[in-house]
């Protein structure tokens, strides 16, 4: 049981790779650094943020972010400094810009188009069924005859 607890503790800590030596003395700055780190992609692992990654490069970028913040940069300036070096791909959340319009607006547009299409189709089907003329007396008797033939 004790072993299990220790294991769970380990798992809990594994999600954050920030080493004690990296932490800033100023808690407000450290919180900002952590937030920024959570938004930056580790380019070695490509699907983890640098806050979670144990990669060496992630460590370097965490230090870089903290240096910029300590030097007085705003959050935006700090993120921009990393983007200037590594490109927009380092942002885990892609920015809304012409190159990413399809990414951001494509899915909602598809959903709306699907809803409109379904609505139009349903309405047309309903209209078509309303137009249906009931069978005439002659047709009814002919249908009855055919049914009887089948039964026999």
């Amino acid at each position, binding site marked *: 049981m004790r072993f299990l607890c220790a294991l769970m503790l380990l798992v809990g800590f594994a999600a954050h790779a920030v080493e004690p030596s990296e932490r800033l003395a100023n808690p407000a700055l450290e919180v900002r650094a952590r937030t920024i780190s959570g938004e930056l992609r580790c380019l*070695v692992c*490509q699907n983890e943020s640098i806050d979670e990654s144990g990669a060496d490069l992630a460590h*370097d970028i965490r230090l870089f972010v903290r240096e910029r913040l300590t030097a007085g940069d705003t959050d935006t300036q700090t993120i921009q400094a990393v983007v200037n070096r590594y490109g927009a791909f380092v942002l885990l959340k892609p920015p809304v810009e012409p190159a990413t319009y399809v990414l951001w607006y494509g899915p909602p547009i598809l959903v709306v188009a699907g809803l409109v299409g379904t609505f139009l189709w349903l309405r047309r089907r309903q209209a078509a069924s309303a137009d249906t003329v009931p069978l005439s007396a002659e047709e009814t008797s002919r249908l009855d005859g055919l049914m009887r033939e089948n039964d026999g």
Partner: protein
Amino acid sequence: MARAIYLLPLVLFMVLATYFAVSLRPNHDIHELPSAMIEKPAPAFDLAGLGASKPLALDGLKGHPFVINFFASWCVPCRIEHPLLMRLAEQNHLPLYGIDYKDKPEDGSHLLATFGDPYRQVGVDRDGRVGLNFGVYGVPETYVVDSTGVIRKRFVGPLNAETVDKELLPLLKHLDQS
């Protein structure tokens, strides 16, 4: 006209098929990232020389196009490209400058003493800050810089004879002439 809608799945399939054909073509690494530094001035650096090398500073290199190669003694793919770098330095007189990235200087010196030194000068980037400024995300990486200090091309991973012959050497020749 209404029939045209039945062609939609086919059209979508063609678009997807083209996308996959392009992305999955041979010799294309989908994990390779485009550099954000292309056509931008190379970040300034002034590094201590490795071993007997003179210090390596960006300002001292401007005036002629040159090639910067980030390497490290701990980097396995660097060993793969090393014989090619040696050949380029000896046969093509490639203006090749090395940056020993996040490495102990004695290990870097040992590497070059053992396998040969293809570099005109080597700088020591002990903490990887110059690499970070260049946008290096894994060694080896090779940058072609023009005579004004603007980065023109980046190669990620070990160079091979084909990319050198088809891309690196023609680009350098072009930069030399312009």
